[in-house]
């Protein structure tokens, strides 16, 4: 923890120095924006929030992730183009825009979400934030994807550290070379003399002893220094049990570790070969062997019994399903769904997922509206298939004069069309759509329809970025994956479970410390509980997080009441019915 504080302090100094230099009081590093709007802090911080909730899982300012790095994107593209792209990149690509298609190809045809619901103001503030962050503005440090606060330590300082490190490597090489030369000399001398100049048995034995002593000191140092950086006390009930089990195991293993490593190194030192010595002929001792089979067996029995008790307690929690929250995992983020006033989570199905219904909740009107969209998509695809030879001709004519990557892209497209890859891909998608339509129809028409579309999902609350849960209540997270396997890992809760498509998993826990209590305890006002992903799920695997705030019962009530039902039938949403669902979402 100490290092972290220092890092922040350094960072603070650095930032204040930067601010003084630019003579600015606020965080903005730009004075004008391509959006044509006046630069102000409020817009930038609004943009930052939008960036964190909508963009961050795939984009960063400085680094290329799933999508391109957004630094200086305002210099590469016009504001008009950016607006179009953010709002509906599908349409922009289909309209034949060259830049749009190029970037699509360049990023392995990863589809970006269409953010049709963003207002002009919101897009403007988003762009403004990117401009500001590109210029290294005050808001840039909050670019979670690229630079955490500690990473943004002063550059000069880092370089010095690097230099020292590289000098160490050079030093190492030098030492190795010198050693090599010495070794060669010794060998020559030995050869001339006809016997070893150095008693290597003794040298190695002494080194073993030396390394053992250094090793044990380092072992203690590790526990003292790095051990202090490990997780603070668990914030859940079962987490405390788990930690206890861990400590018991640690106790036994450290004893065994110290004894066996000591004996190994000590024997290596003590029984080094000496001229004229003869080893003891001692092939076996049954009693001794029984003893050292029995001792580990007993210790392991203790550990197994303790472990199984803890495991049963965690996995067979009788308090499950008292308070359910659904967590939906996708490439690359988490979305939570709280039951509405009816206290029930609505049914859901992956076939119902659309831009309008990101979680595929069983809503009859949305499901019905999705069918014609899918049918239209099939028609479009059929058309595309029929037009392939035209496309081919167009591509060939476009190729003239092109060089480099642009030419290569077109060539690969041509070869895809020629060898039938494109057609089979289209057929595949058409098949997917047809099957999907069939499934939706079945769900709407069979007898089960009533129980499936039971309207319990209508008042569900869909929440991104930050969720709250009450303290001292058994909470059950119900997990659902959209695409690949993820793993929901909450280190501070000592909870982890994989999120597997097609297999509902769950996690039951009871938090016993609120976020505020933990902050006070750790004396860290910025501390938070986080859920992160621990199962490899793609390029931005390292960037999936959800903040979990543990509140007191009252605070939780206040928070949950503020959240509105996502699909509530109020006049406002009724009017915006014209926004049709689309299929390709992120």
């Amino acid at each position: 923890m100490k290092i972290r504080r220092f890092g922040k302090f350094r960072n603070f100094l650095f930032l204040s120095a930067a601010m003084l230099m630019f003579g600015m009081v606020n965080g903005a590093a730009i004075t004008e924006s391509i959006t044509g709007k006046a630069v102000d802090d409020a817009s930038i911080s609004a943009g930052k929030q939008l960036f964190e909730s909508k963009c961050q899982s795939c984009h960063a300012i400085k680094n290329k992730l799933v999508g391109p790095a957004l630094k200086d994107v305002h210099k590469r593209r016009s504001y008009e183009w950016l607006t179009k792209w953010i709002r509906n990149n599908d349409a922009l690509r289909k309209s034949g825009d060259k830049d749009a298609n190029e970037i699509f190809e360049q990023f392995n045809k990863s589809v970006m979400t269409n953010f049709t619901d963003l207002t002009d103001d919101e897009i403007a503030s988003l762009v403004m934030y990117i401009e500001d962050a590109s210029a290294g503005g005050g808001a840039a440090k909050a670019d979670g994807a690229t630079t955490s606060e500690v990473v943004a330590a002063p550059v000069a300082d880092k370089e010095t550290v690097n230099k020292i490190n590289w000098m160490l490597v050079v030093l190492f090489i030098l030492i190795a070379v010198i050693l090599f030369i010495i070794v060669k000399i010794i060998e020559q001398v030995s050869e001339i003399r006809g016997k070893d100049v150095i008693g290597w048995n003794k040298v190695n034995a002494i080194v073993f002893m030396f390394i053992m002593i250094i090793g044990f000191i380092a072992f203690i140092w590790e526990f003292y220094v790095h051990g202090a950086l490990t997780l603070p006390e668990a914030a859940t009930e079962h987490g405390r049990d788990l930690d206890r089990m861990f400590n018991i195991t640690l106790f036994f293993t450290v004893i065994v570790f110290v004894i066996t490593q000591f004996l190994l190194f000590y024997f290596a030192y003590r029984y080094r070969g000496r001229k004229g010595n003869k080893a003891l002929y001692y092939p076996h001792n049954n009693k001794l062997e029984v003893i050292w089979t029995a001792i580990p067996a007993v210790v392991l029995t203790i550990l197994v019994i303790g472990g199984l008790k803890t495991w049963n307690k965690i996995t067979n929690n009788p308090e499950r399903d008292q308070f359910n929250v659904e967590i939906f995992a996708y490439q690359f983020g988490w979305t939570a769904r709280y039951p509405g006033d009816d206290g029930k989570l609505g049914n859901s199905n992956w076939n119902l997922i659309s831009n309008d219904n990101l979680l595929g909740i069983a809503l009859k009107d949305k499901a019905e509206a999705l069918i014609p969209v899918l049918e239209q998509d099939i028609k479009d695809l059929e058309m595309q298939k029929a037009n392939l030879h035209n496309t081919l001709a167009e591509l060939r004519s476009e190729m003239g004069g092109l060089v480099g990557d642009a030419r290569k892209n077109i060539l690969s497209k041509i070869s895809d069309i020629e060898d039938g890859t494109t057609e089979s891909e289209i057929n595949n998608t058409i098949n997917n759509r047809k099957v999907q339509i069939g499934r939706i129809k079945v769900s709407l028409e069979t007898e089960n329809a009533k129980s499936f579309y039971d309207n319990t999902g209508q008042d569900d609350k869909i929440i991104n970025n930050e969720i709250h849960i009450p303290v001292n209540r058994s909470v059950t997270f119900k997990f659902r994956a959209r695409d690949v396997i993820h793993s929901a890992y909450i280190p501070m809760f000592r909870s982890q479970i994989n999120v597997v498509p097609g297999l509902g998993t769950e996690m039951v826990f009871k938090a016993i410390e609120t976020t505020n209590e933990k902050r006070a305890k750790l004396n860290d006002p910025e501390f938070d509980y986080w859920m992160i992903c621990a199962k490899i799920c793609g390029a931005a695997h390292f960037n999936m997080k959800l903040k979990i705030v543990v509140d007191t019962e009252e605070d939780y009530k206040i928070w949950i009441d503020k959240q509105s039902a996502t699909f509530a039938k109020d006049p406002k949403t009724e009017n915006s019915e014209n926004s049709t669902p689309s299929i390709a979402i992120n």
Partner: protein
Amino acid sequence: MDSTATHTADAHVHGDHGHHKETFLTKYVFSQDHKMISKQFLITGIVMGCFGMLMSILFRLQLAWPDTSFPILEALLGSKWAPDGKLDASFYMGLVTIHGTIMVFFVLTAGLSGTFSNLLIPLQVGARDMASPFMNMLSYWFFFMSSVVLTVSVFIESGPAAGGWTIYPPLSAIPKAMPGSGMGMTLWLVSMVLFIVSALLGGINYITTVLNMRTKGMSMNRMPLTIWAFFFTAILGVLSFPVLFGGSLLLIFDRSFGTSFYLSDIFLNGEGALANSGGSPILFQHLFWFLGHPEVYIIILPALGITSEIIAVNSRKPIFGYTAMIISIIGIAFLSFIVWGHHMFITGMNPLLGLIFVIFTLIIAVPSAVKTFNYLATLWRGNIQFTTAMLFAIGLVSFFISGGLTGIFLGNAAIDIQLHDTYFVVAHFHIVMGCAAIFGMMAGIYQWFPRLFGRMMNRTLGFMHFWLTFIAAYLVFFPMHFMGLAGVPRRYYQFTILPEFGVWDDVNVLITMAAIVGALAQLIFLYNFFSSIFFGKKSVQNPWKSNTLEWTAPVERIHGNWPGEIPTVHRWPYDYSKPGYDDDFIPQTVPDDGTEEEVAHRKTVPTMPESKDPAEVVQFSSLLAKWLGLRNI
């Protein structure tokens, strides 16, 4: 049965000898001589190992300095994978995946077991060659093709497979799920299928040779522990690799033919809802780990076998508890088939199943502990000769202890909830099956280099290699335990997700520096290895004064191994420092003069000689010693 088989092989090889003139092609390329095939496995393994190690350095650079630009990366990898000198996130995943695949399969399975099973099985059991030299040759060439395919996959445009070496579907099953799941994944699977063919051809051969081609007098309980280890390794491979073969085949079907063995309920970005339904991604994990866990022992058992031999030879003592060692090997081999679920505690598997896997997993620690204690007992009151091989063998024991103990945390389902897929796991398996197995392989190379090439490796360079590698390996992997305990997940491209992870920045730099030092130390080994092949000191026939049969063969390494009759075996391989003999070793070929007890055959229990060192007798433990029958030592 033994003798007839041997004689037939005998006659055959002798017949061969006179007629064929060996060309360059049949001697060095399509050789059917087990010693040449062993060298081919070894050198391919070393090349792949360098490749895998280089990859680890590349991604370690990224982890230590995520914000620094390394122009050399862009020069090396091109602007697609390292734009502005920074490693691309997708390619990082690809590197991690291919590093794991290479190290687990190509270096530690084929490079270790392939090399030493091939070299030592015929030589130590007293056979002219493998049961089927032709199949043996095929085994190598399938392995070679597999290596080529995997290497090629790194250089294709969409990048190598990038879903981790465990290739869990749906990530690996849907080409659109990530760039690496396209052509890269296809090549990975092709490579793996070729590899499995190689492993099976080799494994069947090893088993057959051990069972049928032992020389006269070489009963099963006179076999060196190396052979026991290779024998059970081969059995594990033959029984478990086909399961991965099946699993991979189903994955290929899912990828290419629209089946749904592993797929269900999937809505993919840019593709929409998939038609696939009814499969289970968890099924693949069961199939994968049914190989994957025995695979861990396929890797470590040969290393332990090699270590048993080397520790006995260089302590100048019989291996302690020969029978217990064999029982441990058998116990580990058997148990390794029923513990695969401990990789899957948190997949949503039925918790009841978890209970059973916990019990079996922790039981495995018992035979492992017995092996460790027996190594220690072998060292005790030995006359230890610190050859380079011996240093590496002792290093292995140290890693085996350190890594084995952390396995007790991970095998306990409750603790695994917290530690699963964190750096603690990375530390654990790198120490116990990475470092330990590599050290076993190194020990084997230094020990049997004279047998392979007729020359000695430089000893002092070997010492430098050992000490640097040993220290660097601990520096790299020990701090990772603590990162894991702080909840840092593995396979992260950078640790910026939570501010808490920032405290590990310095540690990551330390780890990377240590990794670079460790990698540079391997250059010493490479120099030593390749220069010694040509310029090393000429070896004598039995440089380590060893008992086993391979050292009775001439230095010249002829086809058929022994120029005349195959030697007959009269005793177990561990008669070192036997009282009543001038030499401190008695080769297996020395006839039993009738007064000898033979420990392996348990005719009589040997009596202990009087102690010459009074310092050994400690008052405090005399009671215990009396009960143990140790008093007269």
